[in-house]
């Protein structure tokens, strides 16, 4: 809400500066967003008078006004015609700075003498846009005829406009009077209410119009007045200036008067051309099926049955509280006006305004809930303004239909409750003073205080509301700093699992950079995680239909792949979709973070000169019928490049076993016995065939990792190889044995034996390891693979694996002979079971 500061001053008598008032109001909860000083750049612009207008010798569309500034006469070239000899105007001589009305962005330009079609112009008559007052550039600003000649324009126009950012709970603050009441309370001055005394003829009956309210729940009060002998024309400068400064465009006397009173008192009013109201009746009701209305903006609207309307004897004439009808609009020909001042149901107005996307100054006020007491007061003031500016003669109707009067309820509280809530003591006199300054009624009964809010403060309904009034009027700076004392709380539900911190620490320790990505994504982005031709999905079902997926599950996946699709990479599921997405790029909640992470990898590829190891640890969203979705924390890591260092020399290498090393460490740190987790071939279209694995523990899928399928990588614009690791951390937690437990090691030295064997290439390392472990019992402590070789030095179809084995006994030092015996058992078992050959 924009409030001309002089208007606020007029209603409060406050003499403090605009900055001081802005600070105090802000601290009391009436936040000032900006102070506009329209005159800041008007250093040389003055009030001038048009002394003479000559025609331009070379251009019919231009004229040559001569301006008297009080000290000299200056001729300029002008393209506007909306002024006459004798008018006072805003005059900018050469050298003044003005806003460029043709620039897209606000730009100040210095005015220079210019030759226009052969005539020199040594100044300019200004429009409101050039002055930065409004966007209106239609003609030049004609000032009040009383504006003193030669006076700086800033003084003549009165200067500062305070822009408030008001809160939803204070409909009374959407008015100059409401802010004035607050300011007066803070400064201890008296509010000078502009509302006139009741007029003797206020209860007078009129035969011309009957009023009716169908539903008092939707319209608590409907008051009206007639204005006769209407003169529609331009309002005086005083009215127009204030409207413009408040951001409301002046239109004509009657409309300006209603807007002026709305700004001043907060009550929206509407003016109907009385002659167009049919049947001498004005009523309020919801629309009937099939009813239509052409609104002021020229739109023919079909009215839904919940729309609250103003009707005449034949049908709707206005959307109550939102917009008037075109047929009953006040025009130059109007001679009698019906002024409406009503209290409509806030929810009904809010819904209609939202539904039609018509949010106006009026609807904003109605939807916050206005007090019914205000209607008649605003009507009285509006009639006064109209009469003052000579735009008509008012007659009140009996037409105050107020079926259900209601008064604000008093609130009772004990004085000591204030200290109990605030943690600071207030004198009773302070409490009384603060509340009286805000015009609350007070009654005291010992330690009990009974507070009756004024009619405009229906937001105050409970002791805490009253306490807030006292606290903010006295000032929050009275509140001291203390720390809460008392008992500590019990374990809380939903307590954050500190193991989540550890997951991040482990990943960072392993060289990965943590990313925080958006949960919002697009179905298309998730659909790119399988090769494009696989699903053959229509564009409206980007993730594919159930039949297509059933086939993919059958033909393109093994059991591990299906199990991955069941939860950790559930691309065949319906994602949660937004009803109102910002764009199609983020229309759904993610089922997996992998798509976004591959994009992040791609974006970093352009400039990263170091490792490309990234992870994200945020929830995925898995829909559940009739319940909130499950939001499991899935870890998503992507790897584009990894450098390992030999002294200073860095070489890039990523292979599948590197990714396995990461998953093993992560899973082991989470308390899962890694030697019991099995890694099996994974066939899934997101991953490259033959280069991916699934990690299961006791039949539960914990993780999947592998090289990203080349087509999928290409879909993310990645032309280098990429690896991905997905970990279902909740499943890992479920598999965890909890805190690690200690087991003693042998205090005697170990005997070390290396072993290199050649086996068929199909034999897996797991099989070899298993045989070594079984045959090596009980002395074998560990068997660590340290090399793999395939190539010319061994036969085709074979590979060589090399292990470092360690033997020890718990109770003695092994002799060479004992160690050899144990080692030979291992060798024989490998020869016997796998046909392994020892390699020299």
């Amino acid at each position, binding site marked *: 809400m924009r409030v001309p500061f002089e208007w606020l001053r007029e209603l409060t008598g406050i003499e403090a500066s605009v900055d001081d008032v802005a600070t105090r109001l802000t601290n009391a909860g009436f936040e000032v967003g900006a102070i506009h000083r329209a005159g800041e750049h008007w250093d040389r612009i003055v009030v001038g008078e048009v002394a003479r207008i000559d025609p331009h010798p070379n251009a019919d569309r231009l004229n040559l006004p001569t301006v008297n500034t009080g000290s000299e006469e200056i001729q300029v070239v002008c393209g506007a015609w909306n002024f006459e000899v004798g008018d006072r105007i805003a005059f900018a001589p050469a050298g003044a700075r003005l806003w460029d009305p043709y620039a897209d962005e606000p730009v100040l330009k210095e005015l220079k003498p210019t030759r226009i079609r052969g005539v020199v112009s040594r100044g300019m008559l200004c429009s409101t846009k050039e002055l930065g007052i409004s966007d209106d550039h239609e003609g030049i600003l004609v000032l009040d005829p009383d504006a003193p000649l030669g006076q700086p324009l800033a003084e003549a126009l009165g200067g500062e406009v305070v822009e408030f950012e008001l809160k939803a709970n204070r409909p009374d603050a959407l008015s100059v009077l409401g802010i004035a009441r607050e300011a007066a309370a803070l400064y201890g001055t008296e509010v000078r209410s502009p509302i006139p005394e009741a007029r003797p003829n206020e209860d007078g009956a009129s035969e011309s119009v009957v009023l009716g309210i169908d539903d008092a729940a939707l319209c608590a009060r409907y008051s009206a007045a007639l204005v006769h002998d209407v003169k529609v024309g331009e309002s005086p400068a005083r009215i127009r200036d204030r409207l413009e400064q408040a951001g409301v465009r002046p239109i004509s006397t009657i409309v300006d008067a209603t807007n002026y009173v709305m700004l001043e008192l907060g009550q929206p009013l509407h003016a109907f051309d009385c002659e167009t109201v049919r049947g001498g009746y004005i009523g309020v009701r919801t629309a009937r099926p099939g009813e239509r209305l052409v609104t002021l903006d020229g739109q023919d609207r079909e009215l839904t049955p919940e729309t609250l309307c103003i009707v005449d004897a034949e049908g709707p004439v206005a959307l109550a509280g939102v917009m008037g009808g075109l047929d009953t609009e006040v025009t130059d020909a109007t001679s009698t006006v019906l002024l409406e001042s009503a209290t409509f149901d806030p929810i009904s107005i*809010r819904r209609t305004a939202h539904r039609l996307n018509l949010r106006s100054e009026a609807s904003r006020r109605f939807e916050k809930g206005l007090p019914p007491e205000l209607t008649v007061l605003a009507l009285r003031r509006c009639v006064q303004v109209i009469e003052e500016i000579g735009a008509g003669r008012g007659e009140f109707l009996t037409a105050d239909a107020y079926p259900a009067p209601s008064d604000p309820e008093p609130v009772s509280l004990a004085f000591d409750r204030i200290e109990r809530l605030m943690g600071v003591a207030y004198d009773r006199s302070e409490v009384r003073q603060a509340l009286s300054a805000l015009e609350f009624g007070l009654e005291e009964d010992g330690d009990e205080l009974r507070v009756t809010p004024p009619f405009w403060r229906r937001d105050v309904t409970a002791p805490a509301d009253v306490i807030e009034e006292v606290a903010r009027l006295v000032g929050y700076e009275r509140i001291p700093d203390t720390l809460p004392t008392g008992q500590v*709380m019990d*374990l809380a539900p939903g*307590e954050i699992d500190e193991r989540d911190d550890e997951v991040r620490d482990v990943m960072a320790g392993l060289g990965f950079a943590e990313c925080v990505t958006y*949960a919002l994504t697009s179905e298309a982005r998730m659909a790119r995680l399988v090769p494009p031709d696989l699903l053959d999905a229509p564009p409206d079902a980007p993730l594919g239909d159930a039949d297509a997926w059933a086939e993919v599950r059958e033909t393109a996946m093994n059991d591990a792949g299906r199990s991955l699709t069941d939860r950790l990479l559930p691309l065949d599921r319906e994602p949660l979709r937004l*009803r*109102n997405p910002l764009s199609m790029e983020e229309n759904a909640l993610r089922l997996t973070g992998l798509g976004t992470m591959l994009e992040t990898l791609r974006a970093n590829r352009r400039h990263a000169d*170091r490792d490309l190891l990234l992870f994200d640890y945020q929830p995925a969203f898995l829909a559940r019928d009739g319940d*909130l979705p499950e939001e499991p924390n899935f870890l998503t890591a992507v790897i584009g490049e990894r*450098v390992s260092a030999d002294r200073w020399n860095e070489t890039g290498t990523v292979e599948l076993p590197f990714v396995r090393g990461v998953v093993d460490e992560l899973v082991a740190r989470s308390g899962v016995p890694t030697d019991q987790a099995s890694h099996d071939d994974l066939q899934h279209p997101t991953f490259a065939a033959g280069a991916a694995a699934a990690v299961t523990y006791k039949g539960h899928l914990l993780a999947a990792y592998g090289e990203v399928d080349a087509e999928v990588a290409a879909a993310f614009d990645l032309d280098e190889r990429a690896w991905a690791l997905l970990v279902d951390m909740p499943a890992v937690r479920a598999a965890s044995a909890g805190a690690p437990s200690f087991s003693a090691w042998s205090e005697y030295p170990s005997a070390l034996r290396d072993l290199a064997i050649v086996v068929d290439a199909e034999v897996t390392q797991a099989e070899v390891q298993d045989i070594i472990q079984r045959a090596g019992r009980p002395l074998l402590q560990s068997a660590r693979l340290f090399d793999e070789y395939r190539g010319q030095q061994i036969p085709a179809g074979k590979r060589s694996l090399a292990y470092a084995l360690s033997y020890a006994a718990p109770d003695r030092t092994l002799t060479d002979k004992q160690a050899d015996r144990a080692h030979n058992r291992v060798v024989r078992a490998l020869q016997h079971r796998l046909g392994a050959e020892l390699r020299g």
Partner: protein
Amino acid sequence: MQERLDALLSAARTELAAAADDGAMEQWRVTHLGRRSEVTGLLRSVGSLPREERRAAGQAANAARRELEEAFETRQSELRRGADGAQADVTMPGYPVRLGSLHPLTRTLREIRRVLAPLGFRAVSGPEVEWDRYNFELLNIPADHPARDMWDTFHIHDKARPGELLLRTHTSPVQARVMEQIQPPVRVIVPGKVYRYEDRDASHEAEFMQVEGLAIDKHITMADLRGTLTYFVRAMFGPDRELRIRASYFPFTEPSAEAEMSCHACDGDGCPVCGGTGWIEILGSGMVHPKVLADVGYDPDVYQGFAFGMGVERIAMLKYGVTDIRSFYRNDLRFLRQLR
């Protein structure tokens, strides 16, 4: 004997000076001090000398051996100190060590948790997809209330219960969830992602992180709120920070307060960080509205307390001097590495 020893020592010293690595050193040790070395041979041969010469020869051979051992040790430590005993070039870069990094938002969240933990605040989390009831209704924001305009909301398609599922617009619904489940005393903070239907720019995000604080007991006051916030800004931004609060409005608190701290960049003198005012808006807060307490089953005549909420990105931007909120979600490694 002595001549042979002298010649041997001299030759061994020359060789030792040339030995530059572990291999050469080992070879030297085997040659000159090993079982088959000349000194060892000479020592063994002492027994075969005439009795009167034995004593002197034995002493000389042992002295030579000790001398060789000492020379070896000296050379060894020379080599360890640097080639040819020269000073190591300490300006050589270290071998590359590759730790990853935690996201600056994670670090900021942890710091907030760490700062508030000693005051008894436990960190809890709640769902990001929420019911309208928890996000609004239970926070004293009924349907069609104009206060709903304060939160532009993403709604979720749900045929079964249209209009009820949404992306939470603040972490406050977790307040209601916690209070529904446990009786006071309550002291929690709630970090987490929130969502607003809002176009992104340098200072607005559609997805961002908040931390909510809630303390409920029989006698928790607005002064306790102010004290907690003062403690918080000093712990986060330094002991010289001043806090000021002013009246505000949130539907779920009464009284409500906006908190500002004196600018940490200019100490309150006014600078671009604080827009020249010397003060920085840091969070919203207030005493929990009695209606909110009553709706979760607490007796508002017995229990009272405070709540506060802040944007984590805003705290992180102030701490790290980041000027565009979207940087946190671009995950550019150059950004992540700088703020590691």
